[in-house]
């Protein structure tokens, strides 16, 4: 199945979802981007350059690791994880960003902007900009800046200007709006490096294409190291880039169940979570450049969302995934903050791996289902990132008193300076 064969439908649409909803002033910019992207996609040497760059700079291919201890404890399916956490900068976000970097070079632009929520995409973009020699500005909700200072610190040190966005909810969606505002002003020199498979066409397709490297590798690795395809695949869904990246590798394997794991936060109920499809609190809308499911009220204004994982705390979702969901190709489930903390703990203790809070959503759902599966069945989870970055959040979630003491001592030390 070629998701991006628009011959039978409208370009940029996946079923009823997708499209390009942008101010007219960006029309020519987006057209130029589409053309450049199309040319790159058709040029086999571009993909090869991309793969080589990812090998030499980011350590790809990332391995698939068998979690034999966890599988045994649960007594069900054999659990494997795809190790996107081992990428340079610690998450799958780098795949997309380096790909777009190559495209920016092709377009001859010298400045990039990006939105970031958890900070992983901003961190990756700042890294890419440093490596490619681009100017860069990262927009980040002021609340997220306050929550994710470590990432901000690294972005700044890699030479990016980080702008704390004080509009709206001061989180990811507001950073996206601010990026669009920058872009409509500076499109001549500037490429907007969107961080997930959302936004106006061609971004969902483009981000999906770069992230498909995950699924390509993973399919071959499962066959080689696990002896066969997985029965079920789990990936967390924020904007939906790591999920679609992995899922693409198995799109034609109809026997492989694809499961998107959303942020269930405190559980169902508007404002309590960021689950667009698994719960019933979202509806179709058009914002941030695309038509898809949004967590919005009856006026079409967006709701507050909540998740322990900043990277999943987003109002909208990848339109391709919505289409696949409607076609029953992808199942959607939500996982609560509480379940995520438990999944994190057991992963650390039994396997020595620390999934990012985002990725831990995939772990949590997989753990629930693995128990009920047979030991000769296989599960693959996308470990989209590492949890080091989440130390402040995880320490809070685990209510670690030593950590708090440490921070207080540090603060006193700074106060005395």
């Amino acid at each position: 199945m070629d998701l991006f064969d628009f011959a039978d439908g409208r370009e940029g649409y996946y079923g009823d979802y997708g499209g390009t909803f942008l101010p007219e002033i960006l029309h020519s910019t987006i057209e130029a981007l589409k053309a450049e992207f199309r040319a790159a996609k058709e040029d086999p040497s571009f993909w090869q350059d991309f793969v080589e760059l990812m090998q030499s700079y980011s350590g790809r291919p990332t391995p698939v690791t068998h979690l034999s201890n966890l599988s045994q404890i649960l007594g069900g399916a054999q659990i494997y994880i795809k190790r996107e956490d081992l990428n340079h900068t610690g998450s799958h976000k780098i795949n997309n960003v380096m790909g777009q970097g190559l495209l920016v070079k092709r377009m001859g632009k010298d400045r990039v902007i990006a939105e970031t929520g958890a900070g992983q995409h901003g961190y990756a973009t700042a890294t890419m900009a440093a490596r490619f020699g681009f100017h860069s500005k990262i927009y980040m909700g002021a609340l997220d800046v306050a929550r994710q200072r470590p990432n901000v610190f690294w972005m700044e040190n890699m030479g990016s200007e980080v702008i704390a966005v004080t509009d709206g909810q001061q989180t990811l969606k507001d950073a996206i709006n601010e990026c669009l505002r920058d872009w409509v002003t500076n499109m001549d020199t500037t490429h907007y490096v969107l961080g997930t498979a959302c936004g106006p066409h061609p971004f969902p397709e483009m981000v999906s294409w770069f992230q498909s490297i995950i699924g390509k590798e993973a399919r071959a690795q499962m066959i080689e190291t696990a002896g066969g395809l997985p029965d079920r695949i789990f990936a967390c869904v924020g904007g939906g880039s790591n999920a679609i990246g992995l899922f693409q590798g198995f799109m034609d394997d109809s026997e492989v169940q694809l499961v998107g794991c959303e942020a269930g936060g405190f559980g169902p109920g508007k404002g309590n979570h960021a689950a667009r499809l698994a719960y019933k609190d979202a509806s179709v809308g058009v914002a941030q450049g695309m038509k898809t499911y949004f967590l919005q009220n009856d006026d079409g204004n967006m709701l507050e969302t909540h998740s322990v994982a900043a990277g999943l705390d987003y109002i909208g979702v990848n339109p391709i995934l919505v289409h696949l969901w409607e076609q029953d190709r992808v199942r959607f489930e939500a996982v609560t903050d509480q379940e995520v903390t438990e999944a994190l703990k057991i992963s650390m203790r039994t396997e020595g791996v620390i999934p990012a809070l985002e990725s831990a959503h995939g772990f949590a759902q997989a753990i629930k289902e693995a128990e009920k599966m047979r030991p000769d069945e296989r599960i693959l989870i996308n470990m989209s990132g590492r949890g080091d970055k989440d130390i402040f959040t995880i320490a809070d979630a685990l209510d670690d008193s030593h950590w708090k003491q440490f921070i207080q001592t540090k603060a006193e030390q700074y106060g005395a300076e």
Partner: protein
Amino acid sequence: MALNSYLADRRQHPANQSRNAMIMTHVVCGYPSFEANWQALEVMQEFNVDLVELQFPFSEPSADGPLFVKANQQAIENGVHVQDCFDFMRKVTEHFDFKVVMMGYYNTVFKTGHRAFLEQLKDAGAHGFILPDLPVDEAQELHSIASELELSPIVLMTPTNSDERLAQLANAADGFIYAVARKGVTGSETQMNQEVAEFIQRCRHLTDLPLAIGFGVSSANDIDFIGQHADIAVIGTAALKAWEEQGAQGLRLFFTQLLDQIDQK
């Protein structure tokens, strides 16, 4: 349609004898309050503005600059709903002389439903609508309902568009064309220069509709410049800024400085 003929007539209005451009102003529904909106509109009426955009607040106003972003956000926090905007619009269109167009983001329309929204808009007395995040390529159905209801879909033309694209936009347009004088969001200043003139010229070649020039109009000179090249001057952020500083009195002062010199010519 209704808007086209209004604008044709309105050019002959006594107030427009000395003004070489018509004036369109902007109000964000419910910001700072509907009462304040009403007072502002009364001032605008005093100065014989020709058109008013009533903006329906949206939570993601990505084409707006900081002042309007704040206004949108505050209005929503004030509890302004779409229905309130329609109710207010009806009162406005019943009371004032100027004509009203709805301005907002597409999701507000989409979520209400194309036909339902436009019918309510018609019912509330509006003459058209401006949806800056709805490209014409996505607008066929909406525009055809609009045409049925005699509502003008106001289309934006921008300096980054090719002539080919401008022609396509002209094709879809009705009422007037909103020509965006420069890149960027609302509220930053634009140099009204040769480049802008050339852009207006490009638009002019491709449409007979009146051309409204927006983004950054804040002085009598700007209006004069627009009058020389186009038809309607759009006054948005500068007026809101004046209101923010001194309320109705500030707004009155602003319009006096902006228009009296021209009107007394």
